């Protein structure tokens, strides 16, 4: 072939080629260069820590246990995961639907015509960034409310068995929620459709399952395996002291809950990958 002999240009290394590390950097630049991302992440942190702080301020009048309790502390400190999951979900959907609505996807896929590495890189960047923000939020909530717990003689240190693990699980749940939503966004390619679908899974599905579960036994049996329910067991304290005892009301240990959420996330990413590879951009 008569490929032109091109002079070396400054800024283009001689071995310049498509590499996964480069695609990862590219997706990092894309995600962090949008103001909407920064606002979303800041919202997760501020709302999470803020709500924990307000709940802690009023906890005495709402009723407190007699002695320090990891479970009680989590009910106040882990509120950031319960609220932040919705912001994380929107962020995850937009990370890919935003490319389609703005036609950015043409530029992206022209640079990476093999396509699938783009989705993999987006998933890794989202998982890492949102989980990190989750850690800041949850450990921040614990730190911000520590003095108020201490005043009531209810302070629980991070060394207390279960607390640090639950906060870690909650942060990981936020990261996985964003990644799960990314897969849904890749399947539906639309912000409105993607957000509606993910909020359906997070909010409506648990509600519908619990209503149906009253009359149908098998529905009650699968309810703990829903995305949101399994996610909640990631930051819950097992009923018994023995290793491997499940979270109250579910057959899942926190670790098993994490695996269920991971399975949901993997499924959505695989379907998203099939859509990305199969359809015209």
């Amino acid at each position: 072939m008569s490929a032109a002999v091109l002079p070396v240009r400054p800024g283009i290394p001689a071995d310049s080629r498509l590499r996964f590390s480069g695609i990862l950097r590219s997706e990092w630049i894309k995600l962090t260069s949008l103001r909407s991302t920064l606002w979303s992440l800041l919202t997760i942190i501020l709302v999470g820590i803020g709500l924990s702080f307000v709940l802690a301020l009023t906890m005495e009048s709402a009723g407190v246990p007699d002695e320090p309790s990891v479970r009680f502390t989590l009910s106040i400190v882990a509120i950031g995961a319960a609220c932040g999951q919705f912001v994380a979900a929107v962020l995850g959907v937009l990370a890919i639907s935003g490319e389609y609505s703005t036609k950015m996807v043409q530029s992206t896929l022209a640079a990476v015509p093999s396509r699938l590495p783009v989705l993999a890189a987006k998933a890794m960047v989202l998982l890492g960034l949102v989980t990190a923000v989750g850690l800041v939020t949850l450990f921040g909530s614990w730190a911000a409310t520590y003095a108020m717990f201490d005043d009531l003689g209810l302070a629980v240190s991070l060394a207390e068995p279960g607390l640090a693990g639950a906060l870690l699980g909650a942060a990981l749940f936020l990261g996985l929620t964003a990644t799960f939503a990314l897969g849904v966004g890749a399947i539906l390619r639309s912000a409105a459709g993607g957000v509606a679908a993910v909020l359906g899974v997070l909010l409506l599905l648990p509600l519908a399952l619990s209503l149906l579960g009253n009359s149908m036994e098998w529905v009650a049996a699968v309810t703990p395996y829903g995305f949101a329910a399994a996610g909640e067991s990631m930051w819950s304290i097992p009923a018994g002291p023995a290793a491997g005892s499940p979270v109250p009301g579910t057959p899942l240990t926190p670790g098993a809950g994490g695996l269920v959420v991971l399975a949901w996330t993997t499924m959505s990413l695989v379907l998203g990958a099939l859509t990305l590879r199969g359809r015209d951009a």
Partner: protein
Amino acid sequence: MIHAQTLTKRFGSRTAVDGIDFTVRPGQVTGLLGPNGAGKSSTMRMIVGLDRPTRGEVKVNGRAYREHRAPLREVGVLLDAKAAHPGRTARKHLLALAATHGIEAARVREVIELAGLESAADRRAGSFSLGMGQRLGIAAALLGDPATVILDEPVNGLDPEGVLWVRTLLRTLAAEGRTVLLSSHLMSEMAQTADHLIVLGRGRVLADAPLRDLIDGATASAVRVRTPQLSRLASAITGHGITVTTLDDGAALVMGMSPEHIGNAAAAAGVPLYEVAAVAGSLEDAYMSITADEAEYRSLTTTAHKERS
């Protein structure tokens, strides 16, 4: 070098590209000309793998685009001036694309300068005019210093200075030995930029030839003649396939005879001539003649006329 073989794209029952074969060669500017809906954009999208051909294939330098190790070094493409996230600055947009291939910030700065975007580089792309969007798209296409450049309607929305810049840029890229493929429905732009034309209509190749040959082959040679004795001249040059048409300004247009023959015939008949001039065909005339059989396009070519003027 771009090589397409029985390239076909159907969207449902509509055939956008209908089994076309063509080769785009390096060292020249090749124009893809045709009305909107003729299959220009679909063809370009298939070249860089955004759309998958229903049948056939297209290769860039011997391989499918997606099989290249460094796609951006191989092909730079501008398909849509709006193919950037409006919330991201031009610089971050380019840095993100460059990062995929390990291309450094120095090259990003260089293409920003090349495209004349220095003052706008840190503004968000959403605030850009169409013309600035085109410049950003061209900057992105040049990031990898590619051997092949593909631009879909690059002068849309550009001011006259920008149009001239694109024309010069494309001529320079071709002179450097690169393969340049440009699409447009603006014939005046094509006539001034392209060396070779592929005319598409309803998804098929209607013509594939050097610009000059296309114009010469598709337009009958005409000679503008001015004489006080037109009727005597007309009878002196009658013959098969020769027509004489009177023009508004009193001159006449003779088709089917060379200026030499007209001059000789006039001298023999003793008819004085005030003016004898060969009239070169225009790309527009050639285009009309090429697409004349495609009845569907009569109105579309008229539209192209209007947009040009």
